[in-house]
């Protein structure tokens, strides 16, 4: 029972840290395109998030199960193909969401298939990890992206839409500006409540490291080459052969 509790706690911590503390958009500067071009309303923000979630889940699963043996330069082609396939499968859904929108928006959804975030997460994490950790990572990345996309969509729809007659999608600089301030607020919160994570926001040493998984229930150590900066429940050792300085 305690083992399950611990596992649930670790998953929750991982989800929280992956989505919030190491938010892909606010700290990693990936997935910006979709938010700037596509998140022009709450509806589109939610739709983009769901599209990304489906694509990322499938790409990470395929990467961890089938693509590990391939060279990296070939794997990226598969991610793009899977992404295009997922977008094609979600086509009716995209049609419903974007009906009444401009002709740009179906293209934004299609381009989610080649979102840099997918390749980054698959290469940084999925191909070095196990399936269950990948699922957690995919959910946490999607949640992090979705939080930002929905926030920007809300602001575009209710603030920008009421302030001016110009459609929100025509003003990419507003999305970048709002992203910048949200990132600043995020950083202030991390500094206050998670100061030990703060240095990770820039140097992100932990994200490249081998993570030693501690299971208090069993009293055993498991080594896992996962990466998402989990510093609370795991000890961190530098992956690239050298010990981290000072440890």
């Amino acid at each position, binding site marked *: 029972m305690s083992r399950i509790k611990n596992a649930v706690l670790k998953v929750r911590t991982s989800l929280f840290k992956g989505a919030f503390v190491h938010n892909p958009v606010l700290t*990693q*500067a990936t997935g910006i395109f979709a938010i700037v071009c596509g998140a022009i309303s709450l509806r589109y923000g939610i739709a983009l998030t769901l599209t990304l979630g489906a694509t990322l889940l499938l790409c990470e699963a395929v990467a961890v199960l089938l693509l590990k043996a391939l060279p990296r330069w070939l794997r990226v082609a598969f991610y793009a193909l899977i992404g295009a396939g997922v977008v094609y499968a979600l086509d009716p859904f995209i049609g419903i969401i974007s009906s009444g929108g401009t002709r740009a928006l179906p293209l934004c959804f299609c381009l989610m298939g080649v979102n840099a975030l997918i390749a*980054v997460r698959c290469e*940084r994490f999925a191909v070095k990890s196990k399936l269950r950790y990948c699922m957690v990572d995919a959910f946490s990345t999607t949640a992090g992206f979705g939080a930002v996309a929905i926030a920007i969509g809300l602001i575009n729809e209710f603030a920008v839409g009421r302030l001016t007659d*110009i459609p929100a999608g025509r*003003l990419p600089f507003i999305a970048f500006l709002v992203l910048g301030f949200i990132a600043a607020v995020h950083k202030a919160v991390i500094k206050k409540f998670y100061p030990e994570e703060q240095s990770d926001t*820039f140097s*992100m040493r932990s994200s*490249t490291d081998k993570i030693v998984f501690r299971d208090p229930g069993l009293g055993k150590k498991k080594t896992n080459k996962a990466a998402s900066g989990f510093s609370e429940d795991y000890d961190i050792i530098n*992956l690239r052969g050298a010990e981290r300085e000072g440890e």
Partner: protein
Amino acid sequence: MGKTEKTLISKKEYRSYNTDTVLLSVGLLAVGFFINGSTVLYQAAVCLFSSAICEYLCFALMLRKKSFTDLGFIASALLIALLLPSSAPLFVGALASAFAVIAAKLPFGDGRNAPFLPAAAGFCFVAVLFPEQTFTYAAEGFTAVFSSAEGFEKGKTLLDMLSEGNSIRLNLFGISRLLSGTLPGATGTTSLLALFGVFLYRMLRKPFTLLSSASFIVSAALFALLFPRVNTDIITGIISELCAGSLIFTALMLINDPVTSPAKPLRAIAYGFIGGIISMLLRRFGSIYDPCVFSVLIMNLLWPAFTGETVSNKLLPKAKVRKQKRSDQKRSEKKAVGEYVPAYDLFSEEKGGADE
């Protein structure tokens, strides 16, 4: 530790420039008040108030000790008030001033470190969001009212005439309108006499600042000479292009900002020259009615990209800037080749952002 290299303009120089800008702006506002009435003063007051409130709140929130004595926020607010029409709704000026402080100044420290001129950024913000309110000028005789008032009549500016292939006649009446500033236009941009006064003041106080101004105007004049829009004589065409919109105002008050413009003479001339060409190109091919201020922002972003000279290192000798660029590149390469750089490790040099 070693001697600290001076890289930024000094606080004293910055304050001195802002003081000059404030004095000149007050003079231009007085002329504007004489021509356009009390709406000019309301606009300036709202811009000042908005700028002051935002400055105070932002720096209080950041828990930073803020000195208001550098007058940067006052200079920005007055410049914005001068660039707007006297009949513009008051919220436009308030928004522009707020944007100048919150978006163009605060995230980069203070006015001495801002990569973009805050007043230009604030004006461009409202020009994109509210083009109609920002570029609607009262006709002669309909001043001292806001554009939302009943019976307001929109005036035809020189820019409108030029876009139709017309220009103002350079007879006594036309010249007197240009000199006095009674033509429809933004508050601080129409009176040639007042702008000449600005030129004289700058010449007496800081002649170096006129290098970029002069090259800005010269390049715009050359462009007008080579690609005229009017079918009358060359001189009329050139004078019309130069007097239209906020070109001369931009040259005298914005392009020569010591923070964002180069510190060395030849570079300042090149900076102004390219800025002038860009503003004329934007007039022909851009989507904004009066894009001269946008050329200031474009130069602010292009100059560091091509010369490596930023606000923070422009006083360094060229060799040191090159050395800095090389070590910057080597550091990036080292991380790219030897270490696995996380995708989000964009600013690995900063490492937690402690103030060195």
